[in-house]
């Protein structure tokens, strides 16, 4: 009883000090940036392509194709190209978005009967990530409280309390910066290129996060249960990257998807792009590369009959 009685004022003191310091750090600025962003790398600023994307996205609109996944999705899958070619499309990718994040986005933001096909990029890096970075980014920028709470609770990390508090304290503020590479339709395409051969740390062991494997399975199940056609895809990778590692990943992915799972379109090395001219860094396509990949993907989807009827 004493323990309970004493824990109440202690908790009140904790919450009071916590909110007071948090609020003050949101107000105090250094070179125009609130000090709160210097307290922890997980507190990301509101704004950028994620903010623009989720403000533009209209859950009541109908899309033939919806792209989802990490930065590979919004950098490499050009929704505008699909739209230009008669297929309405939108890109819901976000920085370091993991299957866990994608699951909550699909569940809470996307209406199953408004989507003809979901193309999910399954870049290996997204499955090797616990999802903290992406959750922090999405927590500041997406409108759905439920999706944010779902992601935050999955993380098992005390820092999500800071992330949620920041979201709450910044709820009335607009975006703090704009991403100039953002394009209507959710993409964010860069026009620069690497210009030098990328180097790769070859032979790195593959370690998929169990939580992401679990959520990838949940996405497959969710889409199947809600009659949302799903295609998994991996976009072009530089030729100099680790082929053996990729092969190992594809084998693991095949086990996760299972024989009755959604189709997997692996375009990683099925291309003739230049590592230096069509990538802006060691694994992201630039606008020129994204256009070639999107054309290739659209052809493939059409050829396989995976696109919804017009």
């Amino acid at each position: 009883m004493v323990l309970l009685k004493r824990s109440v004022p202690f908790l009140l003191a904790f919450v009071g000090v916590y909110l007071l310091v948090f609020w003050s750090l949101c107000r105090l600025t250094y070179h125009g940036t609130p000090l709160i962003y210097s307290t922890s790398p997980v507190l990301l600023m509101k704004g950028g392509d994620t903010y623009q994307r989720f403000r533009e996205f209209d859950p009541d609109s109908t899309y033939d194709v919806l792209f989802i996944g990490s930065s590979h999705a919004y950098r490499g899958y050009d929704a505008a190209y699909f739209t230009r070619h008669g297929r309405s499309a939108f890109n819901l990718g976000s920085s370091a978005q993991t299957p866990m994040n994608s699951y909550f986005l699909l569940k809470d933001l996307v209406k199953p009967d408004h989507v003809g096909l979901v193309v999910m990029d399954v870049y290996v890096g997204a499955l090797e990530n616990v999802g903290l970075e992406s959750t922090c980014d999405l927590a500041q920028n997406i409108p759905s409280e439920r999706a944010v709470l779902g992601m935050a609770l999955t993380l098992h990390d005390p820092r999500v309390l800071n992330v949620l508090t920041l979201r709450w304290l910044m709820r009335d503020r607009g975006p703090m910066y704009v991403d100039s590479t953002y394009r209507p339709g959710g993409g964010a395409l860069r026009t620069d290129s690497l210009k030098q051969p990328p180097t790769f740390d070859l032979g790195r062991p593959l370690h998929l996060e169990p939580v992401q494997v679990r959520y990838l399975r949940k996405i497959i199940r969710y889409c199947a249960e809600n009659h949302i056609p799903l295609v998994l895809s991996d976009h072009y990778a530089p030729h100099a990257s680790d082929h053996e590692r990729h092969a190992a990943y594809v084998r693991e992915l095949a086990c996760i998807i299972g024989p009755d799972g959604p189709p997997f379109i692996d375009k990683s090395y099925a291309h003739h792009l230049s590592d230096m001219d069509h990538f802006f860094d060691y694994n992201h396509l630039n606008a020129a590369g994204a256009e070639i990949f999107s054309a290739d993907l659209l052809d493939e989807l059409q050829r396989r009959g995976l696109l919804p009827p017009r």
Partner: protein
Amino acid sequence: MLFNSFEFAVFFPVVAALYFLLDPRWRWVLLLVASYWFYMAWRAEYAVLLVASTVIDYSASRGIAASDHPRVRRRWLLFSICSNLGILGFFKYFNFINGTLRTAAGAAGWPWPVPDTDVLLPMGISFYTFQTMSYTIDVYRRVLQPTRHLGKFALYVTFFPQLVAGPIERAPNLLPQFFRTHAFDQARIIRGLKQMLWGFFKKLVIADRVGPIVDPIYDHPALHDGPTLLVATFLFALQIYCDFSAYSDIAIGAARVLGYDLMENFRTPYLSASIREFWSRWHISLSTWFRDYLYIPLGGNRVLKWRWYFNLFVVFLISGLWHGANWTFVAWGALHGTYLVAALACAPFWRRFDAFTGLDRRPLLRASINVPVTFVLVLLSWVLFRARSIQAAGNILRRMADPHAGFDGLRHALFDHAPVVALITLAFAAGFLVLDPVIDGLVKGERTMSRPWQYAFYGSLMAVCLLFGHFGNTAFIYFQF
């Protein structure tokens, strides 16, 4: 399992709740299972070593107690010491010794066919090996009657709060506590939680924030000038103290919540006025272990003067080696041994000097000179402890002594990348240095504070941990030992 992990945040309250709900007769079973769970969360297969250590010392102690024949008793003792040190030696020192022999053979032009092993150093092996060895030695010395209860002895070896990084407990203190019933004492639980919270603050807000400043500088010392290296070493001194004493605080606090008293391991060591005093305040459980089981058996100070100095030096040399299989740790131990021997040899001179200058009548003034001098000596030794090689340590010390270096390098190293983050970290570090003696006394119950202030203080401490803590599951530095 790390104390600063989400797993522990779930594990500990569940274990504590079950512990007090369970019939006291079976609590040891819960603690034993929890302790193995705690250890096996890291690498399940290495639990075999814990079992081996337990069985070896249980059998050896029973064997010793069963006989009055000195030779039989000695054989059992030797069996325990050789087995324990054999396991420790293989896992911790094999590659070090092998590498040293290979280098020596190479210098002599001989081939060295023995390859290195690629086994992982078992977490906490140095800690639990010393703890179990002390038990058998105590039984051999008839300080302690061996326990018949294998389960409770196994718990003594593996008790999770102090299993992987101490304090290195002694059987006469800890073992009898497993035979007592610990009531649900709320005041005690609150004290334990306070000490744990202080430990988390030191680890998350100081040690783990300072680490990212120190690491890049010490990883590439050749890129930095003297003042930068000096500040990095100062920050490392803070980091290692906060990191290690945080572990001890969390361990002692967690044990206290469950009703157990562990020995104190740190007592504001940087306020020591001599190296000797430093070792009575830093890693107390290890320094007293070496005193009781190595220094005194070697003859301690009841021998000729040269032999006394030799004993001291050897103890510190071995203490250095205990910390790690690297010549830098040996040199670190040797340097501390040298400090102590030099202090003893010069003691008559300093006594006369104090009398001549009147410092012996002004203890505060003497402390204000001796404390910074001792700290600088300790700081120099940390260079050896943190550097990757003796050569690197030599280069760092040479650069530190360069009188021509300016402060531009320091400014770039600290403030170019993330100035506000660095400033916040330095502010916490400075605040900690000022407040540590006060707060340390407070959480250990040596000082008191009115209840409203306590709520405000501990509530703020928790808020600061959550807001400014570095949550990245960073392992404690002493895990590698």
